[in-house]
């Protein structure tokens, strides 16, 4: 097997928003790497900064500091002209297919817009444009007859396919998918997920898949990062994370999933309270307030990600204790 090529490396990415109440730490010191053809799943609750992170990588929100290294170059140093060119390789699929399409543009206009903006095709080039639209629509499974329809005539699943088509039309390498299926019904969701998997295989795409749905993430991702209030708390290959979650938040998150099996009796870890405010966070572990194991030391220092086993990173001050405890249990058995 040939070694996987690294396509994206994010170093210490930070994005703060200045609000009347104070500094909102939306993305606070996040680092990860991503290899070509893989899928990185980003999970977390609403308000934890998942979407802001996705947008900051594409510079749709200008990051405050850090590095985003794409194919060996720091794109945060790019001029807007260079950035525009680079955007052909990095695309985004947005969350809500009901509001992310222009209601006054037909399907073909929406799909072709990126090509015209990038100047790859000219407006006069009607014939090749028509061919291109047909090609892309076939790829994402939209019937030809829908070429001249408007978004309001279509259902959510088809609209999301347009969103995917728009992202694909420029032949990107990396696609950031921000909750692409959460607005869809389960049977339609499955259709779209299958489509995205097929396209990844066919076109060798790399995905960053942002979602709050853990079963979807496990289904698609090779690696998973868990976010809490702007920071990564755990990072591991999908299998490892689900088999052996180590951070108390990840544990609670996984135990909260309602499994569609009446025989499944979950040992629910019920968290107290809700996500605290990301505005002017106090020093110390941000999860400490809701954590069942929190000790005094947790309020004092903020642990960074530490590699506890191969490829498995956890940010928790008490992690050594947990691992020793588990080892103890295993030895007893």
């Amino acid at each position, binding site marked *: 097997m040939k070694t996987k090529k690294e396509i994206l490396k994010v170093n210490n990415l930070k994005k703060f928003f200045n609000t009347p109440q104070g500094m909102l730490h939306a993305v606070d010191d996040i680092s990860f790497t991503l290899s070509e053809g893989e899928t990185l799943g980003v999970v977390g*609750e*609403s308000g934890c900064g998942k979407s802001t992170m996705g947008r900051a990588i594409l510079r749709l929100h200008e990051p405050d500091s850090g590095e985003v290294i794409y194919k060996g170059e720091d794109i945060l140093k790019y001029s807007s002209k260079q950035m525009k060119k680079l955007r052909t390789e990095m695309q985004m699929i947005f969350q809500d297919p009901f509001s992310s399409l222009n209601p006054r543009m037909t399907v073909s206009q929406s799909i072709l817009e990126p090509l015209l903006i990038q100047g790859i095709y000219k407006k006069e080039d009607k014939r090749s444009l028509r061919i291109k639209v047909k090609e892309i629509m076939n790829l994402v499974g939209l019937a030809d007859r829908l070429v001249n329809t408007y978004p309001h005539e279509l*259902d959510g*699943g088809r609209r999301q396919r347009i969103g995917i088509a728009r992202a694909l039309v420029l032949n990107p390498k990396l696609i950031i998918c921000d909750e692409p299926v959460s607005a869809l*019904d*389960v*049977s*339609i*969701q*499955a*259709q779209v*997920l*299958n489509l995205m*998997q097929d396209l990844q295989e066919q076109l060798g795409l790399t995905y960053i898949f942002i979602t*709050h749905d*853990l*079963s*979807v993430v*496990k*289904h698609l991702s090779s690696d998973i990062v868990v976010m809490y209030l702007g920071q990564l708390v755990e990072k591991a290959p999908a299998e490892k994370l*689900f088999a052996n979650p180590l951070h108390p938040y990840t544990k*609670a*998150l996984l*135990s*909260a*999933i*309602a*499994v*569609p*099996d*009446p025989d*499944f009796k*979950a040992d*629910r870890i*019920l*968290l107290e309270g*809700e*996500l605290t405010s990301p505005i002017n966070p106090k020093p110390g572990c941000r999860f400490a307030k809701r954590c069942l194991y929190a000790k005094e030391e947790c309020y004092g220092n903020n642990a960074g990600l530490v590699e506890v086993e191969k490829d498995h990173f956890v940010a928790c001050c008490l992690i050594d204790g947990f691992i020793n405890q588990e080892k103890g249990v295993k030895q007893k058995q």
Partner: protein
Amino acid sequence: MKDLLLIKDLVIHFETDDGIVEAVNNITLGIKEGQTLGLVGETGAGKTTLAKGIMRLIHKPTGKIKDGEILYKDKDLLKLTEKEMREIRGKHISMIFQDPMTSLNPVMTVGEQIGEVIKAHNRISKKGIEKRTCEMLETVGIPSGRAIEYPHQFSGGMKQRVIIAIALACEPNLLIADEPTTALDVTIQAQVLEMMKSLKTEFNTSMLLITHDLGVVAQNCDFVAIIYAGEIVEYGELRDIFKNPKHPYTIGLFGSIPNLNDNVKRLKPIDGLMPDPMSLPKGCKFNDRCKFAMDICKEKNPEMVLLNNGHKVKCFLMQNNI
């Protein structure tokens, strides 16, 4: 066990300028005392219309209950006067609506909103209302001191708790919960569901839980009804439905969800889309999406077939098997 609520051949249509929307078509369904029935279906299947039909909250003048009976303790709710119906709502049957962000009144404190129901159904002093309101808030895990706060001061999970407190304030016999946790995060969803479960036992309430999340159903319900295009296509005990689904639509639903325990590389979705309730297909409503569709499915609408243990399926495939 006796049925607390029995819906018989209920038909609800919306007569709009563009045509007739056939939202609920001949639904027969019973909810047993002290049990939770899960009603599962996709957007537009008629779940919410059915729930609103039970409460007689269908939008007039377009919406009409065309036919059928809704028997609550052997009394037909459809024959009651509006005044009598008001006695039922909130006191005997109450409802939790889908979106906690929009179903509270933004210019009333949460305490006033809980007190409102108590005042409407009980002859009780102002002090008594206040006391009961505080009790209800404590029951759903909110400090009673927050009764004087407004909805915008609460988070999503907290608002949903307030709504649950309103719904349970008069200890109803039947609680209709319309997607109570869809708008919430998983950890909050787990909190709210756990709380609803314990309150249900405490007050001995029966529940109709409407959802599209099969996981939520598996962890909370005793019986399950699957609804498609305004018809119940399968009904049975939780285990029968989950372990032995019979209707092609139910099987398709289970194939569509990624499972955490099995490693499935590809999902098996149902092809096509839900039919438009304004022009439902002839015959079985599911025939154009069904892998097993036969000629007869396009002609005639199948009858409910009773298998064992109260497991009912509306499909011609089952009729042939018997």
